[in-house]
C-alpha cells in the first residue's frame, strides 16, 4: 500500500482541523478516496486526534492548561472544584466525592511578560520540576493549573508549592510563589 504522490502531513492536518479553503479541501478528499495509503495516514491522524479529545474530556492531563479549556470542560459538564490562590499565601483545598477535576487559578501580573515557566518546588522551595512556556491568560492575568481528582497524590495530605517565573533572553525573574495545601478529607468550609 504505497502512494506515488503522498499528501503532506501538514495538508492532512490542516484539512482535518478545518483550516483549508473549500477547493484544496475538496482536492484532499478526492485524493484520500482514491488512495488507500493516504486514507490510512488520515485514519492514524484521526485516531490521535480522537484520543486527545477523549483524554481531555476525561480530564486526563496535568498542570498548566489553556484557561479557556477549563471553561469548555465546565460547559460540557465536567464537575470542577476551583480554588483561587494568592501569591505568597497558602490556600487550603480539597475535593468532594462528586468532583472530577481540581483547578487552581494563579493570579499574576503579566505586564511585559512574553514567556512564563511554572516550577514545582519542594518544602524548601527548591525547584523539583519545571514546565517551560506554559499557557497563560493575559486578559484575566492568570495561569491555570488542573489535576484530575483521582490522582494518587490527592489521597494524602500534602502541600503543592509552585513558583511562576518570567523568562526572557536576559534571564528570569520570579512573578510569584503559591502554595496549595491539600486535605484528602474534603474541601474547606465555604470552598
Amino acid at each position, binding site marked *: 500500500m504505497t502512494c506515488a504522490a503522498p499528501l503532506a502531513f501538514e495538508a492532512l492536518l490542516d484539512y482535518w482541523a478545518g483550516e483549508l479553503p473549500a477547493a484544496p479541501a475538496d482536492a484532499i478528499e478526492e485524493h484520500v478516496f482514491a488512495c488507500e495509503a493516504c486514507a490510512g495516514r488520515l485514519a492514524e491522524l484521526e485516531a490521535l486526534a480522537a484520543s486527545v479529545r477523549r483524554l481531555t474530556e476525561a480530564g486526563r492531563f496535568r498542570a498548566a492548561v489553556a484557561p479557556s479549556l477549563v471553561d469548555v470542560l465546565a460547559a460540557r459538564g465536567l464537575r470542577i472544584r476551583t480554588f483561587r490562590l494568592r501569591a505568597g499565601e497558602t490556600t487550603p483545598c480539597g475535593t468532594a466525592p462528586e468532583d472530577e477535576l481540581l483547578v487552581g487559578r494563579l493570579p499574576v501580573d503579566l505586564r511585559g511578560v512574553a514567556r512564563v515557566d511554572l516550577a514545582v518546588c519542594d518544602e524548601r522551595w527548591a525547584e523539583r520540576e519545571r514546565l517551560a512556556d506554559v*499557557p497563560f491568560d493575559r486578559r484575566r492575568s492568570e495561569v491555570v493549573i488542573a489535576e484530575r481528582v483521582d490522582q494518587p497524590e490527592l489521597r494524602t495530605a500534602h502541600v503543592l508549592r509552585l513558583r511562576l517565573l518570567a523568562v526572557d533572553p536576559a534571564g528570569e525573574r520570579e512573578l510569584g510563589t503559591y502554595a496549595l495545601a491539600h486535605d484528602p478529607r474534603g474541601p474547606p468550609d465555604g470552598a
Partner: protein
Amino acid sequence: MARMFDAAYAFHMDPPAPPPARSLGDGRLAARVAAGAGADRDAERELCRRFAPRVRLYGLRHLREDSAAADLVQEVLLTVLERLRAGAVREPDRLASFVLGACRLAASERRRGAARRAELLDRFGPDLAAREPERPRLDVERLERCLEGLAPRERAVLQLTFYAERASGEIAAELELTPGNVRVVRHRALAHLSACMGAEEVTP
C-alpha cells in the same frame, strides 16, 4: 483426434476461479459487483471493507459525531452497492470519485435521510455495511504519557484544536501566537506524539 479431445475437454472444464476481490483494483472490483448484480458477495464485502474507513473519515470530518459518521457509512455503501448492482455507474474506473460524490450528497441530505436509510437497510439487510470499519487502534495509556511529555504549549494547542474545536485564529489570540505559529506548533506536537507512540515517522 487429440485436438478434438483437447477442445472437448477444454469446453467441459470448470471456468477458472475468479481472483480474490481483495487483489482487484477499484475499477475491476466495481465491474465485478456490477456483473454479479447482487450475487458476488466477496466483491461487495471487499468494496465495503475498502471504502468504509474512508467514508467514516469523511463523516467524522463533516458531521463531527461518531454515530453520524457510522450512519453515513451504512447509507453511502448501500447506495453505492445499489447503483452498481443496477448498472447505473457509468465509469467503474472512477469508483472512488463515485463513492465521494455519494458521501457529499448523503451528508447534505442527512436531515431527510432517515427514511431512505431505513428503506435501503430493509432491501439489503444489515450484514454488508453494518460492521465497524477497520480503524487504527491506539494504546491510550501510552498516548496519555506521550501527551504529558509534550511541552505545555504544544499540549494546549492540541487540546484547543481537537477538544475545544477552536480555529487557529482563536487559539492564536489566546496563546499570543500567530495563526501560522499555531499550525506549526500543532504539526510539531502531532509529530512528537506520533513518534512517541512508535508510529511511522510523519513527513515533516
